């Protein structure tokens, strides 16, 4: 599904990603964690080319991103992304936020897009707010709308970039619930998150990054109960 090969990226002189190799199968749920500055957000932002990279390759369903830069939009249409700061479009209503991309990019009729948008809004339990503007709803609701917005494009894989980090604590749960439901439906997911409870419950694999390298790539039980790497042990001792 996603194959990252020998990926290297520099911000000027700073080597953010060092020789990353990673392969993610269809239906897998992968959690990426690590201390801040370890390159985990940069890594998933490379997967839909929001970040450019200097060496290596990223391929989505066998299509290399660098080889198809002309139609990078096509690849992005199949890769949903949820941001830390939601990035809803404040000048559009919730419903318009959801229907914008399907109508523009997928050429779906307005009515069909609306019907589908309402389906996803009720799935994230927020359909009553459809005609409000993003500024009128809470952070947790915004993030659920952002997830629904991505789902409206029928993505093959969902990338989550610290989706709960900017939320008030009492709103984290409602967002994680939506993500857990999504995981249960078999969506391929890559989540950068510090929510270790979510990781343990949902993830098939947990990837630990530090200083731009993948240090560990383990199933949850092994990751939490039998960590074999000193840096991982130190990280776990700090957050658990």
């Amino acid at each position, binding site marked *: 599904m996603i194959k990252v090969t020998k990926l290297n990226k520099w911000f000027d002189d700073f080597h953010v990603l060092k020789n990353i190799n990673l392969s993610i199968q269809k239906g897998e749920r992968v959690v990426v964690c690590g201390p801040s500055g370890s390159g985990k957000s940069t890594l998933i932002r490379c997967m*839909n080319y*929001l970040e450019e990279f200097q060496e290596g390759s990223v391929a989505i369903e066998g299509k290399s991103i660098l080889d198809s830069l002309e139609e990078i*939009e*096509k690849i*992005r*249409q*199949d*890769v*949903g*992304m949820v*941001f830390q*700061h939601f*990035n*809803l*479009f*404040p*000048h559009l209503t919730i419903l318009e936020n959801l229907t*914008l*991309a399907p109508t*523009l*990019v997928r050429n779906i009729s307005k009515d069909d897009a609306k019907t589908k948008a309402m389906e996803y809004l009720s799935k994230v339990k927020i359909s009553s707010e459809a005609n*409000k*503007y993003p*500024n*009128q709803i809470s952070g947790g609701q915004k993030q659920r709308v*952002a997830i629904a*917005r*991505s789902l409206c*494009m029928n993505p093959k894989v969902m990338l989550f970039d610290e989706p709960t980090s900017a939320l008030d604590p009492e709103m984290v749960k409602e967002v994680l619930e939506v993500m857990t439901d999504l995981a249960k439906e078999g969506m391929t997911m890559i989540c950068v998150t510090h929510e270790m409870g979510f990781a343990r419950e949902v993830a098939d694999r947990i990837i630990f990054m530090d200083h731009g390298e993948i240090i560990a790539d383990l199933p949850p039980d092994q990751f939490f109960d039998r960590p074999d790497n000193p840096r991982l042990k130190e990280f776990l001792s700090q957050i658990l």
Partner: protein
Amino acid sequence: MRRGLDHKLVHWGKRNLFPNIAQSMISILMLIIGCGLLYLIMNWFLINAVWKGDSSACREASGACLSFIREKYLYILFGVYPREHLWRPIVGLILWIIFWFHFTKKKNWNKSLLLKFPTLFFIYYFLLSGGWGLSPVENHLWGGLPLTILLSTVGILVSYPLGILLALGRRSKSKLLSYPVVCYIELIRGVPLISILFMSSVMLPLFLPNDLNIDKLFRAQVAIILFSAAYFAEVVRGGLQSLPPGQEEAAKALGLNYLQTQMYVILPQALVQVIPPTVNTMIGMFKDTSLVIVIALFDLMGTAKSSLTDASWLGFSIEAYIFVALIYFIICFFMGRFSQQVEYEFKLSKERS
């Protein structure tokens, strides 16, 4: 009831005008100055003014010579446009006013404006120039307010979109695009409009072949457009920069291409952010059209100035300039009000539930 109102007024005055000694003295001083000014203006403009009578009556009086305005207002407003066809620019101006009120209502802001604006422009141009049954009037006879309106509306309508394109070009990742745009903007901003107008009217013909005679009005119009596009570009760029980068990222991540991202996500937000400086630039540009006087186009300012050269009415420049100043002020005032209204509408649409 009546006493209540008095009481309120006294209370208001005490609190706002005379709260303490220093404030009270400033208030009294300002009141005296205000009354004095009012007295002078009333004296000049009403009490001692000459409403009827010729220029010698005016010279004897100490007040305003309003009969000069009575004599010259048609010339100042319409220049030397043939008097028998005067209804045409008048109808044109009325159309603009009607359209203006149509345009200020938010429910009319939709794609049909893209059709209405050019249509109105062509009707207006047709009314001024004639043809198709109307007797032709050459454009060196156009003048006064219709010319000012033509130069400024066409100038704004063309240079604003051009400015948006320039702003996008300046932010382009491609150096091949952004560097020339930066050069253009900096070059134009570094030169006064008056010199660009001179260049368009004096220098440009030197470089063009003799038989290629581009209309003077057209050249002035192009100069104004090129000039203000650079200013609009910088205003719009300010709006683009005020948006968080997450907006563009979210649009890209959904698979929107560059054009869709700008059209549906970035520009609708960026342009609203910069409504006040945009209207500011528009007002500035509207007034700047008066500079076309230097290349002998007689816009409103030009006709006012040349009305002063009438040998039998020498020396009434204050009256003439106040007359055109009032016209400029009224139009600019409505533009400013429009800006406030647009801002209010957008604020409202964000807050409505």
